[in-house]
């Protein structure tokens, strides 16, 4: 029989042997506000999916804190003089998670897959790319049918995500259930509505900037519960903290918060000409009524009540601090007297209409504040709450007079503008159609010089904001909260957590 002491002597030796295995295994645990949809960059359609992709799939480009284009899988780019070809130099030595090489042929495959995969949501984004040429293994040329300056921004989003051609061909449209990309982490498992587990990819090209062995994303829709998980130490990072919780959090020394103005917006879409209902709509019939509606709103007051001031008020598709903001149309001040005068002039001193809102508590509060504020000018606003699918249906059929609608935003202003204000575009729920605006928008797509584009956007602003298909209200803050030991959190305005550089202090 062994004496207990004899066994004890082995313990320190065993512990020492286990030590190197025990220490470095670090997991980053992230709480998401929703469960992402399919993890295929071509098919993906949700904002939260983009959060997860930033760990899984590298893109040709990325955007930085100032929304400037930065190299990622493409190390350099060059436009031709006529802006109709974009030549990309690719980063050497990059491999996909299945060991396949990333090269020009892979880029060609991916762009073509984005454009042709049935149901691809990237088709529209890459529509101007006519053909792709492999120049040499590390050089690829995109030939455009017409100049398209937002292309770089598209390639810095899902349209620029590169998946392993071999894995994509093998999996077909099931690729999203087991994605194979070239990002810092590779896919391990996904349990729907429960978790997504990714592990570090040891051959990642920028592996020195990765300090975690594993990432677990957990969707927790309730903001209070998400926060409770962070506070109890079960999560290291949560996105979309409720604005009402931020103040308390700032006094908590164990946690840090960060906020950044979104690139999207919150606004009210008005049915101008989408359907016959527009003709019965006092707002839709007369631009003066719409102007009165806007003048009766106190945006700062709305932001305070709805968002606890965790928002930047604005009157355009980008926030006033954004480089693309059209300074010739500043945020109008509330002017109830002028609003009343306009209504009188239009012959409808008490216009009545229904405002359709999503069922989220923010949107409901927004509708109530708008109702109260506009009443002072003589408006009679009725509120109708509709869950997302129903409101989408109403928007699409034009079965509404006014609609509370948010947009998550794109890095290039074109992504916030074209689909909403150009004639017959899928997101143009207002039914706004103006040949001059269309011409200006198309010209802005053809120009690459930011100063020249800005001038065009000023002209667009002057036209569109006078007609008010959308009354823009504010730009929410992305609110994040995380373990105070977590360093390297980058506040990029697209609201996506970049895992590169993140580090947990001991």
């Amino acid at each position, binding site marked *: 029989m062994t004496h207990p002491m004899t066994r004890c002597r082995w313990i320190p030796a065993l512990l020492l042997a286990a030590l190197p295995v025990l220490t470095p295994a670090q997991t980053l645990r992230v709480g998401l506000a929703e469960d992402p949809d399919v993890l295929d960059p071509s098919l993906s359609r949700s904002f939260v999916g983009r959060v997860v992709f930033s760990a899984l799939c590298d893109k040709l480009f990325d955007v930085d804190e100032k929304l400037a284009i930065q190299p990622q899988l493409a190390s350099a780019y060059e436009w031709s003089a006529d802006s109709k070809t974009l030549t990309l130099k690719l980063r050497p030595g990059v491999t996909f998670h299945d060991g396949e090489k990333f090269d020009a042929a892979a880029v060609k495959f991916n762009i073509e897959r984005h454009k042709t995969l049935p149901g691809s949501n990237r088709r529209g984004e890459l529509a101007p790319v006519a053909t792709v040429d492999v120049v040499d293994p590390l050089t690829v040329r995109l030939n455009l049918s017409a100049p398209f300056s937002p292309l770089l921004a598209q390639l810095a989003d899902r349209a620029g995500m590169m998946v392993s051609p071999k894995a994509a061909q093998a999996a077909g449209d099931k690729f999203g259930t087991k994605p194979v990309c070239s990002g810092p982490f590779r896919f391990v498992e996904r349990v729907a509505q429960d978790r997504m587990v990714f592990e570090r990819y040891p051959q990642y090209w920028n592996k020195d900037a990765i300090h975690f062995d594993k990432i677990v994303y957990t969707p927790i829709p309730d903001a209070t519960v998400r926060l409770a998980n962070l506070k109890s*130490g079960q999560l290291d990072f949560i996105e979309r903290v409720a604005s009402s919780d931020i103040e308390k959090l700032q006094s908590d020394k164990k946690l840090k918060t960060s906020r950044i103005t979104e690139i999207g917006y919150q606004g009210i879409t008005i049915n101008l000409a989408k359907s016959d209902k527009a003709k019965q709509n006092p707002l839709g019939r007369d631009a003066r009524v719409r102007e009165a509606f806007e003048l009766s709103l106190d945006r700062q007051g709305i932001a305070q009540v709805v968002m606890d001031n965790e928002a930047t008020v604005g009157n355009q598709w980008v926030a006033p601090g954004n480089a693309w903001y059209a300074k010739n149309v500043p945020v109008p001040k509330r002017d109830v007297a002028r609003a009343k005068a306009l209504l009188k002039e239009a012959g409808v001193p008490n216009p009545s209409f229904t405002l359709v809102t999503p069922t989220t508590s923010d949107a409901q509060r927004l509708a109530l504040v708008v109702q109260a504020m506009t009443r002072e000018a003589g408006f009679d606003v009725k509120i109708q709450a509709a869950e997302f699918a129903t409101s989408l249906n109403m928007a699409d059929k034009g079965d509404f007079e006014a609609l509370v609608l948010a947009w998550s935003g794109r890095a290039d202003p074109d992504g916030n503008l074209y689909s909403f204000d150009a004639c017959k575009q899928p997101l143009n729920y207002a039914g706004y159609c103006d040949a001059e605006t269309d011409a200006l928008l198309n010209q802005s797509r053809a120009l690459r010089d930011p100063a020249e584009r800005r001038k065009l956007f000023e002209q667009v602003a002057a036209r569109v904001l006078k007609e008010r298909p959308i009354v823009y209200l504010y730009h929410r803050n992305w609110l994040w909260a995380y373990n105070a030991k977590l360093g390297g959190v980058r506040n990029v305005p697209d609201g996506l957590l970049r895992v590169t550089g993140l580090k947990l202090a001991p």
Partner: protein
Amino acid sequence: MFEYLVKRVATLLPTLLFVSVLIFGLQQLLPGDPAKILAGEDQDPQVVAYLRARLHLDEPLPIRYARWVGGVLQGDLGESVRSQQPVTGLILQKLPVTVELALLAMAIALAIGIPSGIVSAVGRGTAWDWAANAFALWGISTPNFWLGILMILLFSVQLGWLPASGYVSPFEDLGANLAAMIMPAFVLGNAIAAVLMRHTRSAMLQVMSADYVRTARAKGLGERTVVLKHALRNALTPIITLGALELGTLLSGAVLTEQVFTIPGFGKLVVDAVFNRDYAVVQGVVLVTASAYMLLNLLADLAYFAVNPRLRR
């Protein structure tokens, strides 16, 4: 009894068929186009058209119904349009979680509800009765999500004893599994315990005043034997019915509780599916739940025979 059993099983099939028509039909009444929802923020018309064709939304309803039932008969419940995972797989993933939560909640409900109901009936008008009634009132009137959040704040955030949410498979780590399940199971069980207590109390009160109980007492049997052996057995029939119904409800998923504790069960699955108009998932889950419900009711009927010998004649 055998004849009764055959009759009951024979009615199951037409009921299931009726349920399948109902599930399929009711969904079509929901406003909104699944293809549009799936097309996401961008609403590319080509994507919408493609999805509509892929989901067979352009076909007449009877054909779509036949397509679905045909699949079900071959064990194929279709595919989730949102996550691209097969519905059967999703259900198999969530079912054990929901079953475990339901059984734990039921165990807690029975352990609290029946004894407190008996004590309250036997000691009618005493402090025990008052206490049990107060508990029942609290249990019935406390909303699940509120109790859940309070428990998280106390046991997870303040005391740090239990994980705030999440689920661990019992095969991975039984201790962690129970630690994660105890709060949600209590929240669910607590409400059911209250209902069970009220029913046990009233059934017991009724039985305790029956002639045969007086006879039993007159025979000189001890109070314990009279209550537990003679009275309770008779009082159990309505409680079994109620228990089976409550268990059936639990098996259909406890949406709010699952949401608060992030338990990946049926409730969350089906609610998300309804909002996303993920028809195949809704149909699959409701069909499985309806079958479970019917099976439980059948089992409850059989249990009557076990506790009540008079029915066996």
